[in-house]
């Protein structure tokens, strides 16, 4: 299938999906069956080269070319998270958005946190959550502040009437080829977003989490095989992979599971807002054996798996979707 045909089909599907959703908000999802079958993973989604593009941090998914697929028209739920209440940071775009859509379609109420500049993307996600028949709580704010992180959890708990899934997914990634050019300010920003915020959020959330609850952290293949220009970001992903394991050991006796998701190169605003060099963006995903970057939609099912009750023995584990690059 050529690139143009694929795009035409995807945009036709989007129109159909949107039309169906508008006609009958939740029944479209109840009636539609999961697709099943199999597709060629090499051609299922856009391949490089991509057009040269960049946006100021943090960037909007809605302005990327092509738009990332977060499962808007494809994810079909089956009640796997019925009655659950989830908080997702970075829920406006990328994996966080894919998780938010999937969680809602599986029957969970969802609170999403995002930066104020990401409001246009967040609004789309809130709309999708509500069309799935679930409660949506948008809570914008910068998680680099401990006070805000505490507030965030408080607000999520009161908006949703409880909390039993916490997804620490928001991340700061900036490509800096030389350590000599890495400022302390940038290093600090990366640490605060990727490590301090999860600490503050999880700490505030634990008192609210009953046995059977799940915590999920977004790590990365960078934790295992870091790129030379991601010195700051990659070490936070290694630390994430590690905190997931120690926290799982700590919280096992409380019946709270803690797991991680390690994506390979995924087509998200992180990459076009300074997270990757322009030359890399143009050929993004080329080094993966599948020959393309992943789309956020391809990770949604992992977040569902790690959150759902059926995954009750999985804790302290990292599930990957790396396109073949070998980690985890």
């Amino acid at each position, binding site marked *: 299938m050529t690139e143009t045909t694929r795009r035409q089909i995807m945009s036709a599907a989007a129109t159909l999906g949107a039309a169906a959703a508008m006609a009958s908000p939740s029944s479209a999802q109840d009636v539609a069956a999961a697709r099943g079958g199999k597709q060629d993973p090499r051609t299922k989604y856009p391949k490089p080269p991509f057009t040269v593009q960049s946006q100021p941090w943090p960037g909007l998914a809605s302005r990327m070319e092509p738009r990332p697929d977060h499962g808007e028209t494809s994810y079909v739920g089956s009640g796997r998270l019925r009655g659950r209440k989830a908080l997702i940071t970075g829920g406006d775009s990328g994996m966080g958005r894919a998780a938010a859509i999937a969680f809602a379609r599986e029957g969970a109420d969802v609170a999403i946190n995002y930066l104020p500049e990401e409001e246009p993307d967040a609004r789309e996600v809130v709309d999708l959550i509500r069309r799935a028949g679930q409660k949506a709580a948008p809570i914008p704010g910068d998680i680099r502040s401990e006070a805000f992180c505490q507030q965030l959890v408080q607000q999520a708990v009161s908006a949703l009437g409880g909390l039993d899934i916490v997804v620490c997914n928001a991340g700061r990634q900036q490509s800096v*080829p030389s350590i000599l050019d890495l400022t302390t300010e940038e290093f600090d920003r990366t640490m605060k977003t990727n490590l301090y915020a999860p600490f503050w959020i999880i700490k505030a959330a634990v008192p609210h989490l009953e046995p059977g609850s799940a915590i999920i952290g977004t790590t990365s293949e960078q934790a295992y095989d870091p790129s*030379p220009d991601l010195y700051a970001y990659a070490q936070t992903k290694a630390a994430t992979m590690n905190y997931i394991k120690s926290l799982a050991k700590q919280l096992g006796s409380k019946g709270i599971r803690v797991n991680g998701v390690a994506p390979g190169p995924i087509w998200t605003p992180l990459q076009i807002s300074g997270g990757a*060099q322009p030359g890399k963006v143009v*050929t993004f995903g080329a080094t993966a054996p599948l020959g393309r970057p992943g789309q956020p939609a391809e990770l949604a099912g992992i977040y569902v798996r790690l959150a759902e009750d059926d995954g009750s023995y999985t804790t302290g584990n990292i599930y990957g979707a790396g396109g073949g690059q070998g980690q985890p």
Partner: protein
Amino acid sequence: MMRSAILAGATAIAVLASAAALAQQTGSRQTREYVQSAGQSDAFEKLEAETALTQSHDPQVQAFAHKMLQDHSRLSNALQQATAKAGLMPAPMDVGADQAPLLAALQSVKEPDFDRVYWKQQVLAHRSALTTTQQYVTNGDSPAVRQVAASALPIITAHLAMAERMMAKSGGS
């Protein structure tokens, strides 16, 4: 007498060492990043070409690979001269971490797949190099390096066009 000779020697070494350290930091971040990227890109192209000359029997692949070897050797020499003239650190001659997996993938494949993979990689690598070079030509702040980038631009553009034609012919997309 001995002591002051040793001191003079030590000072000379210190001066040389700090000159080397300074050279690492001269030039804007943008220039240093471009030089690194261009150097690694040339190294990648030369290694891909050498791989193709060894692992492919297709006459068109061989002809293209010869040209890549020639052109990218010339380009990397020009870059080295420009950096020396501008007092910058020389461009690296290693394949960057971003492209190393591509090279490894190419080296592990035999004909007929080899030719198809080579063309696809050549299109991608030249697109990437074109993007980076275009940006430096537009925004770069070192006149010597910008001149080298400007003269590389039509060469890379021509390479890309050739590779795209060959990729289409070989049935790739």
